[in-house]
């Protein structure tokens, strides 16, 4: 059982060298590995988030038949670094009437909520930081900290735009958490586990084992999840909390410099996380669409790239949707959630449960083609 990356690494010979150095069962070693991997994860995630801004601009340019960033680095690839540097160099302004404590706290909370989810993200069969038994649940729970951050950011700025944006953000995130959770619950039902590792393992093998193809309800659940997740990450067409044309910039209107950067970074990383979770839950995670049985370290990197590839594909869809659909109205946003997505999600959940009972857990493909 590779519950954590440490226990995974302990299978390999080089780990013995490490234990020789640090002593067996050393807490220090464990913490060291964790810290190393965490730092790598956060760094990679931050890079992906940064690249996300680049991707956004490039893809939108493509859709709008423009060039997009092309000056900094090859194809403008280093644009995000330039942006980052610019942000850090900027003056850190705080409004006079702002609630200081909360103003500081808010962006950090956002970032905390996002980074905390990385702990359970199943990037490969071995490199997952920890494979919690309640992984899915944990991810949903901890990522709602982002909502708190958004709301506090809006409140603390003591500005009308921010306040409205924060209120919208909070209500939107809390509302859309329900269909998302219910859809995820459907997968939990199908897999019988909340551990990302187990869910992913169950989807190993041929492409028909992916939960999205397990039954019609699961397919619907994927759509509900994806739409809900887009709303939860405040992505267009659900980007009401930061609607430029209405609220200037929403909850982060008053933020500048790196604090604003934190918000932006959190958003882009969250989109990636959400896509990766969708890939892990519905699209087979780090599994290839066919069965392979290789058991050595490089396969971890293959798996890593598969998951990231799937996630990036969904990432592309998210950006695509942003530049395709117009923004929703506030009441439409709420009615989409409560009148459509939530009932559909409940229907899916019940449907999945009935399916599991009625067909003894077999997937559609198994029913049609046999085992």
């Amino acid at each position, binding site marked *: 059982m590779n519950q954590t990356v440490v226990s995974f690494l302990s299978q390999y010979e080089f780990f013995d060298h490490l234990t020789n150095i640090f002593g067996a069962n050393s*807490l220090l070693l*464990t913490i060291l590995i964790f810290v190393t991997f965490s730092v790598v994860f956060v760094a990679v995630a931050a890079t992906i988030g940064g690249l996300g801004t680049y991707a956004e601009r490039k893809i939108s340019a493509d859709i709008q038949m423009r060039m997009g960033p092309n000056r900094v680095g090859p194809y403008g690839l280093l644009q995000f670094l330039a942006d980052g540097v610019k942000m850090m160099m900027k003056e850190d302004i705080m409004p006079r009437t702002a*609630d200081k*404590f*909360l103003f500081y*706290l808010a962006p950090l909370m956002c970032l905390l909520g996002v980074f905390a989810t990385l702990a359970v993200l199943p990037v490969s069969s071995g490199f997952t930081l920890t494979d*919690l*038994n*309640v992984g899915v*649940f*944990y991810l*949903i*729970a*901890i990522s*709602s*900290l982002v*909502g*708190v951050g958004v*709301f*506090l950011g809006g*409140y603390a700025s003591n500005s009308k735009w921010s*306040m409205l944006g924060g*209120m919208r953000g*909070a*209500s939107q995130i*809390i509302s859309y*958490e329900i269909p998302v959770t219910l859809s995820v619950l459907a997968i939990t039902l199908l897999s019988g586990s*909340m551990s990302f590792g187990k869910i992913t393992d169950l989807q190993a093998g041929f492409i028909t084992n992916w939960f999205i193809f397990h039954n019609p309800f699961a397919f619907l659940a994927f759509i509900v999840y994806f739409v809900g997740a887009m709303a939860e990450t405040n992505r267009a067409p659900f980007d009401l909390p930061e609607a430029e044309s209405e609220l200037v910039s929403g909850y982060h209107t008053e933020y500048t410099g790196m604090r604003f950067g934190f918000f932006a970074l959190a958003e882009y990383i969250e989109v990636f996380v959400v896509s990766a979770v969708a890939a892990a839950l519905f699209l087979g995670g780090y599994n290839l669409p066919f069965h392979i049985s290789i058991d050595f370290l490089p396969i971890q990197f293959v798996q890593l790239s598969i998951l990231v590839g799937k996630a990036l594909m969904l990432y592309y869809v998210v950006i695509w949707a942003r530049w395709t659909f117009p923004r929703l109205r506030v009441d439409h946003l709420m009615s989409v959630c409560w009148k459509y997505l939530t009932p559909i999600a409940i229907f899916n959940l019940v449907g999945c449960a009935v399916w599991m009972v009625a067909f003894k857990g077999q997937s559609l493909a198994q029913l049609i083609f046999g085992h």
Partner: protein
Amino acid sequence: MFLNTLFVMSALLTVVCAVLVLTTKNIMHSCVFLLGSLIGIAGLYATLGADFVAVTQVMVYVGGVVILMLFAVMLTGGKDFISKAQNLMGLAPTMGNTWTYAVAGLVGLVFLLTNIQLLSRLGTMSKLKNDGAFESTVNKIGHLLVKDHVLSFEISSVLLLGALVGAAIIARPRKQ
């Protein structure tokens, strides 16, 4: 060791945040501290091996606290501005004054003493027996919920439904 570290951190977070909840005069700060306190409790649960409960705690309260904050913001207005500024109504400020704190402190003290009296008998209680790896509680809790405790489970679902519907009905603006 790891557990102890986690315990100390969580306990500190819990207690400090709880006290801050009591002392701060700003309802929003109060809410944020409550959030900290509750997350600390989740950490304590984790040290007790209650992974499911811990995550549930985070899940429910993070969202719940935001709601509380929303309400706090929405409802901090109306007559309160006037009463805060001029104390026209002769009532204590909403976040309390010396008098209310005095009563609260008195009662708290009495209760604290009472509790200490009770706790003093627990000195012989065992220490944590096995601080090795925890087993997952998810499956067991699942089985317990739908077997031994199915009635309470169902009742709680009805309760939640009732609360949902009731809240919606109570809060609905009524047309005169």
